[in-house]
């Protein structure tokens, strides 16, 4: 069991957890990830490690609500526990003084890019960070990325903050301005990483992307995370997660990541129904209690106190918020 010592939303639907995992914290290097399983019937999902604190024995993970497991996890609070956390997994990022490095984070991918940016900065690189998000509220780790880069650029798809456009627009500008770029690291949604690869391929700029295929064990056993690299199968959990962007077959990655879409939708729908059913029961119970309170105040108070505790556990405000947000 792994205790959550702190949990807080850092953007709508994106939550940061500080989790007690001393062994992982001691070994974590930039570019690595963990796999976790929330409860006995849960699936194993890979998640970004944003940073770790070896002294306190904690790791930070940043989670965006997407399917059932991430929605459920994002309803967890400080003091809750996670059944399994295993890691750090994957090969660490290659850190050396390349010269000028552009680190690009798209959406929640910024959390994965951040520790590598920090390590590259420490290794003496000039770090240009480009962070992109759909809108102002979804820009994450702005301050942190600012601290570990020489230049920080931000784009939003809708222009609600900083510059309107995509991270690739900024990258193209840099190239057009004649900025010498020795390495590009891009972590984000697949279309973003593919777009970055397309831009840099023409310019022959070495580009690394961190891939997020479907994964089960993460230890080099099941082979579920295989990706096509130069038309050869490689495995993200032991050969990656970082790969040369110009060798990655992104179409196959998109196709394979869609393999369980129907099942994922079904899981999520049933989970929402469960919450909705619970909400109805709780609402009815509370309404009944209101009626009882009117006639027998003392007895009502006792019952109310007990029932309320139950309601708080089963129907937290943030569960409502995330589910509402998904609709």
């Amino acid at each position, binding site marked *: 069991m792994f205790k959550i010592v702190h949990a807080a939303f850092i953007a709508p639907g994106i939550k940061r957890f500080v989790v007690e995992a001393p*062994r*992982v914290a001691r*070994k974590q290097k930039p570019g690595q990830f963990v796999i976790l*399983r929330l409860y006995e*019937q*849960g*699936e*194993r999902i890979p998640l970004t490690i944003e940073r770790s604190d070896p002294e306190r024995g904690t790791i930070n993970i940043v989670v965006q609500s997407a399917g*059932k*497991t991430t929605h459920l996890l994002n309803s967890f609070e400080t003091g809750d526990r996670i*059944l*399994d*956390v*295993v*890691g*750090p*997994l994957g090969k660490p990022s290659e850190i050396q003084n390349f010269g000028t490095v552009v680190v690009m984070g798209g959406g929640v991918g910024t959390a994965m890019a951040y520790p590598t940016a920090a390590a590259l900065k420490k290794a003496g690189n000039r770090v240009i960070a480009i962070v992109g998000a759909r809108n102002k509220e979804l820009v994450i780790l702005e301050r942190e990325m600012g601290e570990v880069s020489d230049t920080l650029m931000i784009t939003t798809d809708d222009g609600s903050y900083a510059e309107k456009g995509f991270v690739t627009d900024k990258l193209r500008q840099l190239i057009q301005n004649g900025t010498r770029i020795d390495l590009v690291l891009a972590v984000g949604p697949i279309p973003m990483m593919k777009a970055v690869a397309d831009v840099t391929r023409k310019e022959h700029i070495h580009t690394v992307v961190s891939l997020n295929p479907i994964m*089960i*064990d*993460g*230890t*080099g*056993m*099941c*082979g*579920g995370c*295989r990706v*096509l690299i130069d038309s050869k*199968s490689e*495995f993200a959990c*032991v050969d990656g997660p970082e790969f040369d962007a110009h060798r990655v*077959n992104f179409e*196959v990655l998109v*196709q*394979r990541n*869609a*393999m*369980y879409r*129907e*099942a*994922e939708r*079904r*899981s999520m729908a*049933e989970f929402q129904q469960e919450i909705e059913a619970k909400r109805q029961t709780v609402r009815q119970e509370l309404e009944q209690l209101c009626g009882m309170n009117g006639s027998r105040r003392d007895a009502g108070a006792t019952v109310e106190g007990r029932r309320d505790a139950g309601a708080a556990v089963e129907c937290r405000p943030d569960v409502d918020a995330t589910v509402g947000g998904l609709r």
Partner: protein
Amino acid sequence: MTPVKTPSANPLAMKERMKVPRQHMPEQLAQIRATNFTEVNLGYPAELARQEALRCLECAKPACTDRCPVGVKVKEFVQLIVAGDFLGAAAKIREDNVLPAITGRVCPQEDHCEGGCLMGKKVQSLGIGYLERFVADYEQQHLDIKNIKRAAATRKKVAIVGSGPSGLTAAGDLVQKGHQVHVFEALHEIGGVLVYGIPEFRLPKQIIREQVDYMRAMGVEFETDVVVGRTVTIDELLDEEGYDAVFIGTGAGLPQFMGIAGEHLNGVYSANEFLTRINLMHAYEFPRYDEPMVELAGKNVAVIGGGNTALDAIRSALRLGAGKAYVLYRRSEAEMPARAEEVKHAKQEGIDFQVLTAPVEFLSNGQGWLKAARCVRMELGEPDASGRRRPLPIAGSEFELPLSVAIMAIGTSANPIVQSTTPGLETSKRGYINANPETQRTSRKGVFAGGDIVTGSATVILAMGAGRRAAKSIHDYLSTGAW
């Protein structure tokens, strides 16, 4: 009291024993079991077990024991069954085999004990596996594990990396010598391939849990969610965590693929992934469990390969409702490495064996999903390096087999994690750990290895044999300090 050589309690003369037929293992009806994940074999009741035990010829030089990778004293435990001392029989097996309920179910007995049985040469071999399973299950029901005696502590600490058959065996043997044994497991459940690889209908998870509980009662410590090499290195175990010796039993690694066109299509699985989803993650209980599996109901499914893993995968697919379930194997049935009983069971359940057949290409439905396999028929040529006759494609024999799911069960390669993070640990060209076949010692002092990570894909019992040799050798090393 002077020890007396156990006299045989068997009332039958040799000739009479030969006349007793091999007792049939009660099993679920094929049509019924093909739709559920509960165990196929139901186990002998005590009466059948005694009847079967009476068939033992009590050879002076029993080949059964010689051919057992862990050296189970078959004749002696069978005599104890005849005498009605079932717990004694279990204890007798446990002297050499700490996982009898597991080997009784999954060992390829025809290649080992039963293959050596003299009765087999005359009529039908003794049902040694069935008897082993019977006494192990009897022990589980009748022995209170709280009463298990622990050996006197030696104050030596041994780390076991991986909780599969080799690791569990080494752990069991070492704890009986009084060493402090700590087992690290990468996954969230103990058992390695026994848990993620072998399906419920062949080896129920409950059996593994019981065997593991037994080992806990013996004093073995278990820690899940630790990927040695990543979470902690071998050197850290030795230098910082105070272990005196380490045994590496990390097992089979990444699945191999054929390298043919279309293997990346959705619907093409490795057997490891397919089985892990079902066994470890309970995808067959979706959506009660969260892990999904592609819809198999009414679909055509094929496994490529002829080993136990292949049969486990395709029989699981059948239980998930596959309309047609094929085994595509490039050699003939005689070369098939799967256990004889599994082939028999699979046929009874309606699996369609297409032997001397191999896919050459997987075809897409145009939307990224598998639609069919283009296959070719084979014939057998001269023997190859494995000693088996090499399969050769027959020109002009190609045909298309409509398929929604194809499962690749053609072997695995070495998992690189421990090797790549342990300086000085020598490996073979193919990446397996080099270990002395008798002592299981590696190139690193105090580090031993065994099982699939040394030999490549093999069987549960061969891995257990390696675990057993390693335990003996680790004990010698810890006792003498000599390397």
